[in-house]
Structures are given as C-alpha cells and as structure tokens.
C-alpha cells in the first residue's frame, strides 16, 4: 500500500524568514526590486500539495498572491495520479486561453529557485466551501446559474488539445480507473461485498467509449471558486488526464459531492440538464442524464476506495492524524450510495 499514499507535506519552514525571503527573491523578478513579501501563511485544504497565501507590498505587485508548491525532498508517490505543478500551471494557462475561468498564473518556480515545484497565481475572490455555497443566501443567484456555467467551463476544458503530449498526460478510461481502484481495494484486504458487487456490475455494464478529451479529474464543489455571480475559477488541476468527458460531468453529480443535498443531482445545487444543454451548445458532445449514470456509480466507488486509501495511511503509521483515521468511517457513505444506485438498475 505504501506507494499509494497521498504525499503529506509538513512545512518545516512555515514561519521562517528564510522561506519568506526566498519567495521574495523570486517575485522580485516579476514585480521589481522594491517588492516586499510581508507575510506567508499556509492555507488549509489541499491534501497533496501546499497552498500558501502571500501578502505583498511595494513594487508593482498585487496585495496578495497564492503559491501552490510541493517542497523539495518530499517523496512523490510513483503511482500518484497527480501531474506535477509545472504541468498544472501549463494546463491552467491553456484553460484560460480556452475561455475557462481560472486564476492567472504569475510565475512558475524553477529548479534553481530551490523552493521545489510550484507556481504563483493571483488570488481569486470567492468561496470554495461547499456547505456555504449551498446554504448561504448570498449565493442564491450563483446556484441558479452555476449548472449552465459549469457546462460551459467543462466544454472549454474538454476542447483543450493535449493529444500532442504537451504536457504529457496519462490516458485513463473508465475501465482503466475501475481496474486501478479495484486493485487498490483488493490490496487493502478489506471485505466490503457492496464494493465487489458494484465492481462486477460496472465491468459488465461499461458504456461504449467516446472520443477521449482532456479531463479535469476533480471537477466538483470544493474545487471551484464561486462568487455571488457564479463560477469565478476552476481550481485544483492536479488530477488532469486524458479520458472520457462523462467522467467530469458525473463526478460533480456523485452523491458524496452533493454535501447533504441529495435531491439536487448536480453538486447539491441544481439539475444536470442545464449543464448538459450548455455543454452541447458550447461545442461539447450531446449527452443525456442517463448517459452519466455509469460514471456516477464509478465516482461513488472511486471515492469509497480513496477513503480506504487515506485510512490505510493511518493504519500503516505513515500519518497518525485523526482525520485520516476518521475518514475510514466514511466508506459506508459510498456503500449506501452504491446500493441505492444498484437498486435503480433494471432488474428482472
């Protein structure tokens, strides 16, 4: 199991002068020698990479910047699906060119900066916390327009041409993912028959593949920035791969990402039909709601196995945190979802 762990980066230099001054030196190349990095704070969230908020003054700089980075010396898991931060920066720039709302990439870290892999980007104002987006009155208009905006954004992402191999991305079809997560499940030694039943069913009922596209891979509430007028930025591009467009549409529909609002199939905030209409209107393929059913079940299965994996990092002693232990008791959420979805399938 060891190689499957998400790397957890404990920042050893979190408050150190050295770190702040190193960042300042890099950013002076962008904003001039007057620039001061006044404060650097680690933001929570983002299990596999660090996210920092920088406060700047002087020079020709904005007041704040975001740094995403993986420090040097952190062992990257060889099996990890994450594409690396330099590639992530490239894709964000390509998405911007395709008209997808994204943060602006300001500078990519280079080897001789000695800061590891990463990039600076501008800070997009808004909310990422799903429960607030779903509950707060100030996002009521955003919730209405989000389905259409998400459809448009996904059509834009799926239109990006990465087939030429720049950046190099893995091809991962639905069945590839089924095999990948099935292998992990088997390696944990856990017995959870609902997963066996779902895996057997998914393998026997896989839909015909469609032309592969650039898939974001983690498109859901929590990974998009939302403001009062709706979608402000698509974030967290680290799981990008080449695959099936239905994967992205269905991931946001997976009940784990409806955050308690199960009655709204799309992320707990809307119906999937307006997303599909906007997606097709923007040049994407025309899909029906039932076209993504298989992918939604795949999504529940994947999230269940990811929870098992995170618990494994506790069980093995790699991460003693309470969160990693507790998440093992969330696998049963996906079991309930899987059994509900399996019940909905045609039965004699």
């Amino acid at each position: 199991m060891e190689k499957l762990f998400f790397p957890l980066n404990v920042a050893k230099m979190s408050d150190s002068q050295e770190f702040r001054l190193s960042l300042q030196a890099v950013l002076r190349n962008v904003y001039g020698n007057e620039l001061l990095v006044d404060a650097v704070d680690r933001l929570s969230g983002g299990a596999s990479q660090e996210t920092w908020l920088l406060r700047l003054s002087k020079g020709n700089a904005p007041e704040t910047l975001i740094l995403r980075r993986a420090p040097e010396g952190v062992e990257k898991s060889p099996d990890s699906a994450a594409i690396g931060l330099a590639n992530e920066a490239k894709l964000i720039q390509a998405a911007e060119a395709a008209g997808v709302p994204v943060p602006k990439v300001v500078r990519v870290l280079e080897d001789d900066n000695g800061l590891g892999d990463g990039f600076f980007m501008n800070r997009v104002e808004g909310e990422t916390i799903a429960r607030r987006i779903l509950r707060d009155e100030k996002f009521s208009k955003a919730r209405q327009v989000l389905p259409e905006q998400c459809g448009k954004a996904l059509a834009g992402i799926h239109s990006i041409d990465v087939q030429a191999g720049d950046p190099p991305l893995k091809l991962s079809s639905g069945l590839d993912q089924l095999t990948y997560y099935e292998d992990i499940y088997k390696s944990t030694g856990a017995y959870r028959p609902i997963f066996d039943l779902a895996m057997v069913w998914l393998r026997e009922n896989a839909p015909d593949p469609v032309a592969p596209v650039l898939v974001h891979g983690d498109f859901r509430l929590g990974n998009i920035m939302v403001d009062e007028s709706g979608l402000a930025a698509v974030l967290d591009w680290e799981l990008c791969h080449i695959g099936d467009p239905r994967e992205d549409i269905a991931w946001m529909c997976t009940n784990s990402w409806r955050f308690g609002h199960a009655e709204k199939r799309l992320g707990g905030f809307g119906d999937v039909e307006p997303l599909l209409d906007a997606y097709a209107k923007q040049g994407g393929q025309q899909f029906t709601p039932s076209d993504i059913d298989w992918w939604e079940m795949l999504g529940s299965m994947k999230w269940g196995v990811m929870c098992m994996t995170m618990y494994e990092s506790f069980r093995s002693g790699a991460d003693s945190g309470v969160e990693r232990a507790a998440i093992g008791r969330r696998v049963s959420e996906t079991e309930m979802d899987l059994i509900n979805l399996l019940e909905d399938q045609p039965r004699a």
Partner: protein
Amino acid sequence: MHNQPSVSELVRAVKNFVDKTAMPELSGRSGFHARVASNVLGTILRDLDARESNDTREHARLVALLDADPSLSLDELNAKLRQKIRSGELTIQSAELMDHLKKTAIDQLKVDQPNYSALTKALEE
C-alpha cells in the same frame, strides 16, 4: 474488571471535554481536527452500543442467504459472499442479496455517519 465508570461513560466525558473546553480554544486546522475528534468519539459511542446486535443480525442474514454453516465467523461468511458475487452466482437480480446488503449498509451508516443524506433517504423508504 470493574466498570465504573464504564467505557461509554469515559468516552462521553472525553467528548464533553473536547466539545466544551478544547474546541472553543482552538482555531484553524487544530479546530477542524478537534471537530473531527469529537465526531469520532460520537462514532465510538454508537459503535459500542450497536456492534453486538448488528453483527448478530448480519451473521443470521448471511447464514440464511448463503445457506451456510452457522458456526462460521462473520469474516468467513463475508468471504463466501464475496466469492459468490465475484463468480456471478449472486447478482443484483437476487432480491435476497440486495435486501441483505442494504440492511448491512444502513446499520453500518447509522453508526458511522448517521446524518448522511443517503441514509435519511433509505430510512424513509
């Protein structure tokens, strides 16, 4: 061994400390982890309460579903169930299988995450 206070009482006492004393003092990641810890203590209390009867019911259902030797352990029965699912002998066409799996999922989720949306829906049906 004496049982005063009982394990449940001790866990409840720790949960009170986390909820009423520790959590208000903490913020950021520590505050978040305190909330997770408090939820875990809730899971422990529900697990202590329900495990024995849940296991007994699951065991009885599996013996009936698999027509198996009742002296087999829960793990052994579940290993048999997995085999039958993997071989295609039991599929979603089996109402008895679906009924067993759903009841097992509901019992587990009532302990793990009693507020999860899909549980509320399953219990309404």
